[in-house]
């Protein structure tokens, strides 16, 4: 049946992409296998761990809970795009300085998710940071350093941009 694979056209990190994909291919597998954007990680593959977090049309989603075909016409941003544009440079620096990562597997998803919270502006409470990141698992750090890093960047940004 022809509907098993479908032509899609989308924008990924600012570049137009035209590909034919299997209907069953998830967005994160498409990004990693077809576009070699391996910064988005595959963890649990059922929406629990958050390692595959990417942005679609400006909002964070689980890359494992969206199909690539659903992104026809969409604008997708991955950790590679957010890194290249410098949008999350301060978050990445703070993660490094505060040891908010050890193995680093969760870090791309964690940074993309944290950026969504910080984009809302203001300095969220530590509780709000924990709650917002509750959908992103880290098995190394115990989260404390991650909350420190996100809080520090929120404060920096609030001071830097009145």
């Amino acid at each position, binding site marked *: *049946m022809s*509907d*098993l694979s*479908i032509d899609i056209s989308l924008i990924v990190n600012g570049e137009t992409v035209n590909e034919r994909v*299997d*209907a*069953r291919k*998830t967005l994160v*597998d498409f990004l990693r296998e077809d576009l070699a954007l391996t910064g988005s990680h595959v963890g649990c*593959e*059922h*929406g629990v761990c*958050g390692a595959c*977090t990417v942005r679609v049309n400006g*909002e*964070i*989603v*689980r890359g*494992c*809970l*969206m*199909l690539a*075909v*659903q992104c026809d016409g969409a604008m997708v941003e991955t950790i590679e795009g957010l890194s290249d544009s410098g949008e999350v440079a301060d978050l990445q620096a703070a993660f490094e300085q505060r040891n908010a990562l050890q193995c680093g597997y969760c870090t791309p998803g964690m940074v993309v*998710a944290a950026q*969504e*919270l910080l984009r809302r502006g203001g300095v969220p409470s530590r509780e709000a940071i*924990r*709650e*917002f990141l*509750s*959908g*992103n698992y880290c098995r190394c750090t115990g989260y404390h350093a991650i909350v420190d890093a996100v809080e520090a960047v929120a404060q920096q940004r609030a001071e830097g941009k009145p």
Partner: protein
Amino acid sequence: MKPAPFAYKKARSLDEAVSLLAEKDARLLAGGQSLIATLNMRLSSPSLLIDLNGLNGLNGITLKNNVVEIGALTRHAQAERSEIIARHAPLIARALPHIAHPAIRNRGTIGGSIAYADPAAELPACLLALGGEVVATGPKGARRIAAEDFFKGLFETALGPQEIVTAIRVPAAIAQTRIGFAELARRHGDYAVVGLAASARAAGRGFATVRLSFFGVGATPLRAKKAETALERSDVDAAVAALDLEPPDDVQASGAVKRHLAGVLLRRVAKQLTETRL
């Protein structure tokens, strides 16, 4: 794991989606936040996914004739930002932040949560607590189904094989409306071990009516009617004693623990019911 192969069609109209549903093992794709997880784990392997995203007219939130109507394709995040829901359906507003995590609420839909009918999910319980109804369209046209009649069993609803949820409707809150919501979960955003959604109508110092809808304690959200009657007499101890839930053991807790926790939540929610003024 990866999903087994399936075909994919983006529905161009509701009618087209209804007729595509006649195909054997076809499934609807809305937010996909439960469906795609089950596909990845090969707990389900449909032959065809009918993508409803992109259908017009199914994602509005309106207040009309004292009824709040929420279109089935409304995302949880969109509902969270809605002024109409915050003001006129405050129980739903209270429950929404408990549903999964921001990245999932950006995709998950109100209609999907209702049609999936997870026994530990928040929105089915809210719909039942509010005495709301489900609007569905099938080959014979549209119909409304009361929440009481909609949730039939474990992940089982009153929907026919070719019916699609298009909206939910709940009575708008009035001055006497009181609401309460509490759930216990291992981690914020997880499915509840036990949860309780409640609505009441205040009368004097007490209540004229109380509706208690527990979730995570059985195959569907469950009213606790004896406890409601006791609470209408403002007797919280009697309400807890009258809880006649028999939750089965599950991976999260034993039935006995759940029964105990249901009483704890009932006390918390009873307090909320007397405190909230809208």
